């Protein structure tokens, strides 16, 4: 089974956009998550990123990222509550624990952990949409004139992950086809097999990349840079990214990030916070296409 994060070509605006435009757009949403601690704005950034994924048709990637992101957020909340004693509102006293010392679970530490977890979840959704919607070949082609070796290294890394996922799926399928009475295949055995074959697979991938021209020297600029891709949707994504970043920076200066977990929870939700949250959330509609093309296999209307 394909990884939900693997790039899937679709005729949507985000998939058609140039890598630069897509990176600016999705990067702006992730940047908001790192600029702000305010939960309303973080939630808005999450909604924006999820909406972007949904309108671009990457629902599987968004769902998978949400699952992983929220699990990670929960873990961060628990760890933060156990290791940080700060905060005025003590909810639970767990006494002296080995390694941790005195542990008081406070509402403030839970809130601070939730904000950090939310930030991590938003970043994961943003990267998942990027991974599912932005053609890695185009990204690497765009990067190659700037840093050839780095592009090759990045290509190897980005290609190896889906290759390993595909290998894992094949191994799992093969295991299912054994005798039904056979012992179930554990994750550890699967990881061991994948790790053992990773070097061979890396060489395979490198050879394939070489055949596809990654080893060639920098293109002759006198003849023009070949393969530089532009799309009619680029302007939309550059504009959406710029608006989000501008709103985030101006909002920050106007005090839209009014959240302090310590020493007591303070959450300021003023007009600036609401405005930034609305702009960030609505930016998720940027990949929307009014006349979306019919999906393959969909029934045609009579007479068509």
């Amino acid at each position, binding site marked *: 089974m394909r990884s939900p994060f693997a790039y899937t070509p679709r005729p949507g605006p985000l998939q058609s956009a140039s890598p630069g435009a897509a990176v600016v757009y999705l990067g702006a949403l992730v940047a908001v998550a790192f600029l702000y601690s305010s939960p309303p704005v973080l939630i808005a950034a999450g909604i924006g990123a999820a909406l972007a994924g949904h309108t671009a048709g990457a629902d599987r990637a968004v769902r998978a990222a949400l699952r992983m992101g929220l699990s990670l957020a929960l873990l961060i909340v628990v760890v933060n509550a156990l290791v*940080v*004693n*700060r*905060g*005025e509102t*003590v*909810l*639970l*006293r*767990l*006494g*002296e*624990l080995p390694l941790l010392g*005195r542990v*008081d679970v406070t509402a*403030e530490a839970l809130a*601070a952990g939730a904000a950090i977890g939310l930030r991590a979840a938003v970043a994961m959704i943003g990267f998942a949409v990027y991974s599912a919607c932005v053609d890695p070949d185009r990204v690497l082609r765009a990067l190659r004139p700037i840093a050839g070796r780095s592009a090759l290294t990045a290509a190897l890394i980005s290609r190896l992950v889906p290759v390993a996922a595909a290998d894992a799926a094949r191994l799992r399928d093969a295991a299912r086809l054994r005798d039904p009475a056979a012992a179930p295949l554990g994750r550890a055995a699967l990881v061991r097999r994948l790790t053992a074959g990773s070097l061979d697979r890396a060489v395979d991938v490198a050879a394939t990349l070489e055949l596809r021209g990654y080893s060639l020297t920098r293109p002759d600029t006198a003849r023009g840079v070949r393969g530089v891709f532009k799309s009619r949707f680029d302007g939309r994504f550059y504009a959406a990214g710029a608006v989000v970043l501008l709103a985030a920076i101006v909002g920050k200066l106007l005090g839209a990030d009014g959240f*302090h*977990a*310590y*020493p*007591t929870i303070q959450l300021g939700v003023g007009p600036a916070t609401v405005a930034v949250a609305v702009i960030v959330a609505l930016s998720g509609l940027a990949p929307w296409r009014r006349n979306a093309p019919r999906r393959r296999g969909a029934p045609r209307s009579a007479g068509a």
Partner: protein
Amino acid sequence: MRPNRRTVAASALLCAALAAAGCGVGPGGEVGEASLTVSRDFGTERLSPPAAEAVSESDTVMRMLDRNATIETRYGGAFVDSIDGLAGGRRAGRPHDWFFYVNGLWSPVGAAEYPLRGGDSIWWDYRDWSASTRVSALVGAWPQPFASGYEGERHATAVECRGGGVACATVRARLGDAGAELTRVGAKGAIRVLVGPWARLRGDATAATLEDGPGESGIYASFEPDGDGYRLTGLDRGGEPARRFGRGAGLIAATRRFGAPPVWLVSGSSPAAVRAAAELLDGADLADRFAVATEGGAETPLPIPVRPPR
């Protein structure tokens, strides 16, 4: 599905273990009363009336401060940046910040990590730290640390009489009245009180840090050689000499090195000066002072007060 007996027994055992480990819901029960003082410029100006309130099992220095003042923190709530709007930073080109003391001792851990006990005396002071980043001990929390101890433990007190004469008896009496548990000289873990003229005290390694300036000792005073004796000089908050006292001047100060028990100095240029210094051992004369000099019956706080920058 009904839980089986093993599950019930395991749950009961876990609850009992947690209860035995001091676990519970909420801040916990009261453990006594603690006092809070907030001042600026080495205690020369109190910013709010002293507060005393009951503290609970889970209380920390930060939690008590937060209940009694409006504070802003940095570094994830670990560092107090401002109290009642007075924020750390540079004033008149000098670095200023908030420092706190529990029972007269600079804390080795942050305010958010320092658990409170009944009887603790907390003092927050906003001061210039250009001359000394670490004033490790001060005298203004009298009768602490003698009465309740420090860092969660009560410690006995050893009075080391080094030519102090009758001043030593005065010091012992005052300490006894304050609730100190007196012990023999050299007792392990005891708070040391050195009593005697500076010429005798300077042989002690901890006391001798006074001659290295406030950066080492945290005491804004020094004894300068003067003929066959020493004379006390008071330093200002920048560590510069600000007042030269006469030969009858006495000093009460406290210092601490490398996590060892604190050392109090009751000293002066002469035996008479030491006697005068010993008479200062009470709450009225030491309250809100980092250290005190006395001359001719008049007390002078140390560092020598100058008009602070606003």
